[in-house]
């Protein structure tokens, strides 16, 4: 089963490098380097996954993601965010807007392929860096208006994220915590859901600054 992908990145060399080296089961339907053409191309070609650069001129990945989801609604592809730099607010804003995962540009090609397959299959993809961002966002204590269902991570979720931040794969996290890989995935999905739905101060502040 192949996974169809569209690459949105303003860095020509990166696009070419990824496209040329991805394994055969990943089909690249097209690529775009600017926001407006990217939106048109996604709506036209309907890939399963959009590999989306966070930082681009004219609103960046967030503008692409918001427009596409606004036009296609539930039929929109899944988005895997990608960036070279470390601005956590940009990344978290993209996740809150609906991206299913985040990887850094230093990721190896096999790992990138695995991440693309994973998001296509509906899983969340947490790079160590995203795990760190999320732990950070949920770490500061807030007494008022806490919704424990949404605004706090469970100890188990926190433990899973800490292992991911340490560089463990889902499989290794499962072995380390004596749980199945499915359980690890469900913890991660739950964290992603909380991240998207929580009204925590830090998260709303980011969202507000990004105009969500």
């Amino acid at each position: 089963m192949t996974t169809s992908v569209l690459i949105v990145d303003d860095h020509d060399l990166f696009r070419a490098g990824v496209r040329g080296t991805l394994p055969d089961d990943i089909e690249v339907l097209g690529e775009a380097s600017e926001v407006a053409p990217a939106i048109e191309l996604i709506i036209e070609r309907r890939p399963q996954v959009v590999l989306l650069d966070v930082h681009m001129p004219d609103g960046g990945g967030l503008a692409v993601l918001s427009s596409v989801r606004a036009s296609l609604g539930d039929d929109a592809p899944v988005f895997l965010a990608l960036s070279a730099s470390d601005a956590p607010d940009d990344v978290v804003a993209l996740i809150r807007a609906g991206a299913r995962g985040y990887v850094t540009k230093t990721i190896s090609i096999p790992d990138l392929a695995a991440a693309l397959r994973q998001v296509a299959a509906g899983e969340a993809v947490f790079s160590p860096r995203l795990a760190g961002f999320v732990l950070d966002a949920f770490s500061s204590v807030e007494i008022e208006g806490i919704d424990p269902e949404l605004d706090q991570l469970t100890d188990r979720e926190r433990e899973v994220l800490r292992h991911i931040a340490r560089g463990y794969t889902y499989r290794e996290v499962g072995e380390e915590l004596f749980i199945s890989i499915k359980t690890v995935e469900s913890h991660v999905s739950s964290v992603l859901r909380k991240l998207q739905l929580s009204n925590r101060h830090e998260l709303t502040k980011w969202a507000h600054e990004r105009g969500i």
Partner: protein
Amino acid sequence: MASERGGIYELNDLERTLGRIVLGYRGVVVTWVVLLVLVAGTGDAADFDRPWVPWTEVGVIVLWFAFTVWLWGRKGDALTSWWFLALDVSVAVGVLLASWIAGGQNIPLAGGYPLSAVAMAVFAVGGPGALISAGFLLGAALVRRVVLLSDSSLAGLISDVASWVFPAVLFAWATGVIRTSDRRRQRSEHALADERSERVRIEERAEVAAHLHDSVLQTLALIQRSSSDSDEVTTLARRQERELRSWLFGAETLGLGGSLVSALRSVADGVEEKAKVKVELVSVGDVSMSEAVESLTRAAREAVSNAAQHGGVDVVDVYSEVDDERIVVFVRDRGAGFDPLDIPPDRAGVRESIVGRMQRSGGSAVIKSSPERGTEVILTLPVASEEVAIK
């Protein structure tokens, strides 16, 4: 400095205390003699042939006491000289025989004064002084008993001998015990201080060794590996020279930055540049720099360099986490792994630069390694009061 101040300040604490006790006792007995003279040496009951003698006695001992106190304050060591001791014993003998000289039969005019001369001698020259002055006073007492009182009974003689020799021996023994134990205490304090400075020296040496291992030995290893590439060798050598110079002569300028995360960032950049691997740094929370945090950073750098060099990997994951109680840094690679118990003794890296360094800073290091799972080094440091959490 001490010699300029003079007097009691030339003496140590114990000698000053002993001197004060002896002088205090002397003050009490002088008062006693003055009262004796006022009560017994005057009035109807006093039937002295030479009534000026009691008054002279009072005058002499009061002046002598004043002189002694003055001497004590100005030239403390004069109290230990033989001339002073001879004069002091002479005064005491005079006091002992005062009522005989005055011609007043058995009216006591001595009080406890003569015994204070024995105490003074013990203080000044120890046991021998005590026996000599007690001998003089005993002689005077015997002369008084036999000649003045015409009492040559054995009981009287024994009583005199006992009342002079026993106190002398007792004083000398007690002072000797106190002085000996004080000397022993001082010796053990010196030994303790020596031991402490020795330990500091050893720790400093270990710190220097660890630093040299991290910097110079690591670079030499890299040079050996890339000895065919002369440009690379030159670059490595130049960088090492710069680093070593700044460590030796400048303020500690390893570019460690002002916080844990910025320091770890420098470490990651440094290793990436040197060893050509990707260091993936993830941080949750941050703290300001302190000595302990700096040691933690150095241990982390050692762990990252090791992973980059020996792990045979492209990526090293570093995760740092700060909460209210502790700072934890995880360094992980998926490389070859090794047995932590199987490190050769000459490889100081893990033992000294990581484990030893963390222990010296009050933290700990745990190393998990296996061929299948690679290596993870876990460095933990309790948060100290001088470290400020950075939000």
